[in-house]
């Protein structure tokens, strides 16, 4: 089948790097505003992706467990919050204030921005310090392109495999802290403790690699198409940075569970797929491709590969993920 062939690995060419591989804070001086976010260095390695049949509440799309190799990357310590996203959404950057070069400014100006949302996309759950929700993966990725252009670092969504690797942080259990659901309240915002809304990012304990809210708060978009049998093609080999490249709007994978989910959907291996249910409240045709009216439980966090891409590869990447 054609879509099986479409699943490719993200091929990065090594360039002379010489860059350090540590946690860092990306600071954006955006005129009168200063925004920043923290990135955690995650050394590459191998891990067992998926869940064993013995795991409680496990679903069949989580198997077979297979070996996956992931290249080094940085991942956002927190889910992306509204401040920076709204800056991208609302404001024209002023070259003199931001000290962007003219060439960069031109590129930034060429990136499209979301149409004004019909209603407050946070649904009154809070903005400052709270995670972005109700956006399409397209909006998340266009934001990433804007962010990449402004900072000069290629930010993107994680692949599904990168996400699970980072979430597990070396663990093989249902949750990154083990199997004991009674501890979930220490690590996650979920249905039973959320009182029906998301929390500020980072209010619970981090995972062993220092990432917050990998379980719960908001689920997180990945770069992948959802396919229930996707893991079976790697049953007897090591998957090298696998990426199931999407060619349709739905279903795409989001991970981690949310404030609106029960514990079983927060497990490291649990896979969620997008569908029209996320857009059902949109009465217009065509439906907005920026805003999903019913995805108030899905946000995203950004990643950055340690290996740098060439300009040509970067162009190809955006062309592929944004259908340019």
């Amino acid at each position, binding site marked *: 089948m054609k879509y099986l062939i479409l699943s490719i690995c993200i091929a990065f060419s090594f360039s002379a790097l010489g860059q350090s591989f540590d946690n860092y804070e990306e600071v954006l001086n955006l005129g009168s505003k200063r925004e920043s976010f923290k990135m955690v260095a995650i050394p590459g390695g191998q891990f067992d992706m998926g869940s064993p049949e013995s795991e409680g509440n496990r679903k069949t799309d989580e198997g077979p467990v297979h070996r996956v190799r992931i290249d080094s990357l940085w991942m956002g310590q927190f889910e992306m919050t509204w401040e920076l996203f709204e800056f991208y959404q609302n404001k024209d950057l002023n070259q003199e204030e931001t000290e962007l070069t003219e060439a960069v400014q031109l590129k930034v100006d060429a990136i499209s921005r979301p149409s004004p949302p019909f209603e407050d996309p946070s649904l*009154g759950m809070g903005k400052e310090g709270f995670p972005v929700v109700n956006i399409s993966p397209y909006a998340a990725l266009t934001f990433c392109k804007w962010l990449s252009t402004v900072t000069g670092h290629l930010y993107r969504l994680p692949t599904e495999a990168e996400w699970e690797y980072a979430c597990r942080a070396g663990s093989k259990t249902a949750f990154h802290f083990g199997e004991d659901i009674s501890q979930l309240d220490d690590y996650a915002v979920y249905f039973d403790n959320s009182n*029906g809304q998301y929390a500020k990012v980072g209010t619970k304990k981090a995972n062993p690699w220092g990432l917050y809210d990998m379980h719960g708060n908001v689920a997180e978009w990945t770069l992948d198409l959802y396919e229930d049998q996707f893991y079976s093609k790697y049953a007897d080999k090591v998957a090298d940075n696998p990426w199931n490249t999407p060619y349709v709007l739905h279903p795409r994978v989001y991970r981690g569970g949310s404030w609106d989910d029960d514990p079983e959907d927060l497990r490291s291996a649990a896979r969620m797929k997008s569908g029209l*249910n996320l857009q059902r*409240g949109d009465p217009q*045709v065509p439906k907005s491709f920026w805003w999903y009216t019913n995805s108030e439980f899905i946000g995203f966090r950004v990643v950055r590969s340690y290996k740098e891409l060439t300009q040509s590869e970067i162009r190809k990447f955006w062309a592929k993920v944004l259908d340019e």
Partner: protein
Amino acid sequence: MSINKDVNQGRRNFVKTSAAVAAGGTILSSFPLTSFGARAQSELRVGLVGCGGRGTGAASEALKTSKSVKLVALGETFEDRLSGAYSQLKSTFGNQVEVPESNKFIGFDAYQKVIEKCDVVILATPPPFRPQHFEAAVKADKHVFIEKPLFVDIPGYHKVMVTNELAKQKQLKVAVGLQLRFETGYQQMVEKINNGAIGDITSLNVYYNVGAPKIHPRQPEQTEMNFQVRNWRYFTWLWGGQLAGQAIHQIDVINWLMNDFPVTVNGLGGRQVFSGPNQGNTYDHHYAEFEYANKIKLHVQCRNIDNNWNKNGFHIQGTTGYADDKSRIYDPSGNIVWRYRNRDETIGSSQRCQSNFINSVLENKPLNQVEYGAKSTLATVMGRMAIHSGKVIDIDQALASKRSILPKEFHWDAEMPDMPGADGNYEIPMPGKTEVL
């Protein structure tokens, strides 16, 4: 206060009618009914009047309901809107969309030609044209889906109500695009509140605080009518104001919950950020305090200003808790005691509302939503009258008004009641001076 009696009777009758149909469905369908409206349809020819985003959405939902639905005619004032809607629908629905060039009608009279070509018509233009379009459709024995609001002034209300009597006589199915009544979570929530889940209702709040409508800057070749229709959300006669154009959804939910409609309203508002000719003559913020016959008040705030705190919803306060637009019921401290949880639903209320209409036609089941559609619209028009005049508007007073805010004729060179002054700006309603009755 005759309106309340009508409503209650309507409710009771509706319940009785439904029960009768349910009990005697097979008997009814075995009669060879000759009236057009009462005949079940096998293939349904749908026409769309008004090809904007909402009209295209409504047509799309009709086509999704059943393969036996065919879109056969399109009407619009703007060619670009029509061709946009056509290509969108054709690419999605293929041979369910069979609209030859001869069935694509442009102009203010397009509605008449669309109506001739179809069994069912979707009316989705801006609202001032609706009473005229509804009347033409019913006179031609067509089933009608009417987008909200149903009119923008009191003469419009009366025309819709008179037309609806004819629609009932002809047993035509008439639906109204107030889809929140089809939101499953709201249906359950309303039932729970009616059963005492928050005690007695003490006050009601509606919010519709969103950004400004899109501006289509004036083009040199445009006539005044052309400019205004392109920018219809900036002209009171074309939009009805924000209460009618937007907040009506939540106001209608409250009316549904109250099983009644407001009898009096006062309010205030203004135009703080909108400026210049491109933003017409509408206000950009409104507050209205409605009162029901049982003295309970409904407070509505709405705003069309960018980069503000936005909220689109409602809050229903009771003696032992409250409920809100998230289909939730809370205790007085804000802890959720009930919530509707069905995230995997793929069908939205808008689709449900349209499917209910199409299925009612296909299965020949009685359907007429004009009563609540018109009375909820009336409340929003009364609200605007109160805000623009600075006076309390009582329903009997309002219903006696003969004032039309529409142009006398609809064509591109028509004489417009709202013309720009010497400085290019339009006259803005002035509370204390503006006459609305």
